[in-house]
């Protein structure tokens, strides 16, 4: 049994929505970072699904490789962003002893 491509798109859209919801609803920076990672991975899944769809449409003679290629770049960039983001979180914790975004309020009108 094969999984239809539409289901992959639906799954990735659901993951992206969960990530977006987490981004807006949670106030812990670490959880917000995890939500962003989830969104990135949802995009990765969508890339792979699209690649599969185009490969199937072309009669599987020539694979559409741009999608998987993009996904690899996304993985690398996600690692880079996580490194920088966690470094900023550590700097914040050293400075203010909190990782709660509600309490990050030195910059306000």
């Amino acid at each position, binding site marked *: 049994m094969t999984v239809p491509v539409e289901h992959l*798109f639906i799954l*990735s859209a659901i993951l*992206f929505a969960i*990530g977006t919801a987490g*981004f807006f609803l949670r106030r812990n*920076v670490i959880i*917000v*970072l995890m939500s*962003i990672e989830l*969104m*990135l991975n*949802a*995009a*990765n899944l*969508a*890339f792979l*699904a*699209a*690649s599969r*769809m*185009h490969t199937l*449409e072309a009669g599987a003679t020539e694979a*559409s*490789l*741009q*999608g998987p*290629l*993009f996904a690899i*770049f*996304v993985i690398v*960039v996600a690692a*880079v*962003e996580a490194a*920088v*983001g966690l*470094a*900023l*979180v550590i*700097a*914040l914790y*050293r*400075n*203010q002893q909190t990782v709660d*975004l509600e309490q*990050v309020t*030195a*910059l*306000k*009108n």
Partner: protein
Amino acid sequence: MNVEMMKQVLTAEALSAAAPFLALTVGILLLLVVEILPGTATLRPLVFLGTLAAAFGYAWQQANGPELRVFAETYVANSTTGWWAILFVIATLVAWLFARKFYREEARFEGEHDVLLLSAAAGMVLMAGSRDLLVFFVGLELLSVPLYTLSGFQRAKRTSIEAGLKYFVLGAFAAAMFLFGAALVYAGTGTLTLSSMDAADLSKSITIAGGALIAASLFFKISVFPFHLWVPDVYQGAPAPVTTFMATGTKAAAFAFLLPMAVLLPSDAAVLLAAIAVATMALGNLGALVQTDLKRLLAYSGISHAGTMLLAVAAQVSGGASAASVSNAILYYMAAYVFTAGGAFGLVTAMESRTGAPVTIESLKGLAQRQPLWAATFALFALSLGGIPATGGFLGKYLVFSTAVQADMIGWAIAGVLMSVVALGYYLRLIVAMYMQEPAKDATHGEGSRPWANAMAVVCAVGVLVLGVLPGWFMEHMK
């Protein structure tokens, strides 16, 4: 894997098209070598300036050279991208020069500061030349990640860390939106390269949804409504030289890609874009009217400027204005803005660097007596931001509004002009404070001499005036 294609990829033509980017990359690596080898620290400024000079030279060649489409049409080099690269180099130079002697506790990380600055500049060049979503994404991250770090560079300062973190969280969110949008566009069209997307695929609803997500993430980078809320906080909290760089460079790079990307947007979107543009101008100006912190005020002013330029993009999307005239208008506007905002933020840097305390309108009072040169140039920058004739800002506004008129968007253009008049209110308030009000007793901002800041202020002022008085030469070259 298409081997034949690969054979055509790495040609001499391709190398010359990528030369400004490659020059910056080599410069970054050389700066790292300088950091590694002991006893070479004195070479750092030399390497930095040499890199910028090389990038400038190659960009100049491109600006006056033929159009090259290389790397399987994913990257272009033409006079427009050449001029963009020149602007990025200038913006980097201005930020770097104003950053001299700015950092104290962080002074031992100046090598890292320079590497990050050059990386961001390389990212901008890549963004402006890319005609492919993957190449653009790499450029975007090469620009963004160094800027997150630079915003939080003063890690002993609470405001700097906060600025870095806010910028990072929202920037990463925008990147995720871009990626999902790119995935949808790829699903709809089967390609990531703009030139191979055909009209039938572009009208699919999945492609349009992806295009909208990509546009939203670009709106975040150019800071227009409703994605502008981060700008005042980040500009205020980031170290002043970094703010100078962000205000001028990031916006320019995102616009440089937004223009070719606009083919993804259906012409029906023009009205929506124009409405967003005018809303952005209104919010930026109203926000600026009530600010007292100078960096926040300039941040809001930057938001309204982004709105003005978006009006030209709307004119292009509607199909009424030619892509060339819109691209020239935005390029000219941005060139004027780099000198104007670069000079204005740079002077704020100079005033801040002595005490480290935030610069407010209060601390501008009586600046004309303490630092006549700074007051005079700052007044010029304020007038240019307000769009007074004989400054670069005026011509930029004129060109942008005339593209809107070409596209029969006269109502929107009139709304934009009215907004510029509102903006004059707060720009004039700055001039009044500097020239007509007595300083507070304990005023300390702007004391002491800073030869670098003086020189840069004059250079930026000359740039603003030349762009305002002698536009013909640039117009000739930009064709």
